[in-house]
């Protein structure tokens, strides 16, 4: 899950929480007479105002539309995986186009990771995060030499992946998941 979406979720939830808590607390204080006699929920002055100002409800409709559009953007962000499916390696259009399917790269990374001693499963994805990032999750058997597997992943598997996409600085996130039983199913 994208960290950016998680941060956005926390921020929006905190803002909505503050709004509800603040509004509810002020309303409760007013209902218990902190600001004088409890006022009506819809004061007559408010009803007169909306009757006298024809633009009022159009402004409310505009605000509601903006809220709906922001909510749609927020909703779509939850569904966005950031997965990259193709890599364009073209340097100069005059020399032709070179496109690599991300699946070819990730399958090669998975196969190489799974061939390591102690690895019971591996899953790789190419995502849009910090630019283009390769993420690899590796399930390790409990008997695995974690330090050795890690060294091989970082030094050999990552180097091969970077070589394949001709990007020596390709950011890579590796998650090691130790403690799997040797006979258990891997990630796929």
């Amino acid at each position, binding site marked *: 899950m994208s960290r950016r979406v998680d941060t956005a979720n926390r921020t929006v939830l905190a803002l909505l*929480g*503050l709004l509800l808590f603040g509004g509810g*607390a002020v309303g409760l204080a007013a*209902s218990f007479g902190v600001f004088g006699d409890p*006022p*009506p929920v819809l004061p007559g002055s408010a009803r007169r105002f909306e009757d006298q100002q024809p633009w009022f409800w159009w402004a409310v409709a505009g605000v509601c539309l903006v809220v709906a559009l922001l909510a749609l953007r927020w909703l779509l962000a939850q569904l966005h995986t950031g997965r990259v499916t193709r890599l364009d390696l073209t340097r100069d259009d005059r020399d032709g186009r070179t496109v690599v399917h991300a699946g070819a790269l990730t399958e090669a990374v998975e196969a190489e990771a799974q061939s390591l001693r102690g690895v019971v499963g591996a899953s790789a994805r190419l995502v849009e995060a910090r630019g283009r990032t390769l993420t690899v999750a590796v399930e390790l058997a409990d008997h695995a030499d974690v330090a050795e597997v890690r060294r091989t992943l970082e030094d050999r598997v990552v180097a091969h992946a970077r070589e394949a996409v001709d990007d020596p600085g390709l950011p890579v996130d*590796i*998650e*090691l998941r130790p403690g799997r039983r040797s006979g258990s199913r891997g990630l796929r």
Partner: protein
Amino acid sequence: MTVVNRVLATLLALALLLGGLLAVVEIVLAALDQQPWLVPHPAWTAWLSDRTLASGVVRAALIGAVVLGLVLLALALRRGRPGALPLPARVEAVRTTASRRGLERTLRAAATRPDGVRDARVKARRRTVRVRAATALRDPADLQSRVGQAVAERLEELGLAGTLRPRVTVSKGAGR
């Protein structure tokens, strides 16, 4: 916590989207002197005009708003346990982490290795690992230090010895 927040965010976003669109439709219908579509707002307006903030239903709604606000704030601000713990970096632009669940699994296996340990429960946090080992031995003697050593060795193998501090307790009981 991330999953809970994501589900909640999806539900709230959906509610705000539908609510916002419904409000726009009702305002347009009212401007065109048409009957309300889904929200009987003339009846609601009349009902709300007769109520003050001191009425029971309104107070209940306000208390509900305060409680919901507090729940949302707690969910948004609570950090919870991490999904994965970062390992010290070795190679440039390579970020390696160990999943918390995997870590707990492997530390549990390490903690149950010394003779006399019947079972162990492990909870990893950002800076500490709590290991609760259960033994059937009448006299656990140095079992706590042996379990602590096994856990520390495993953390060392994982490269987390400097990041996570193990806290081991041994109790006489049946374990889980």
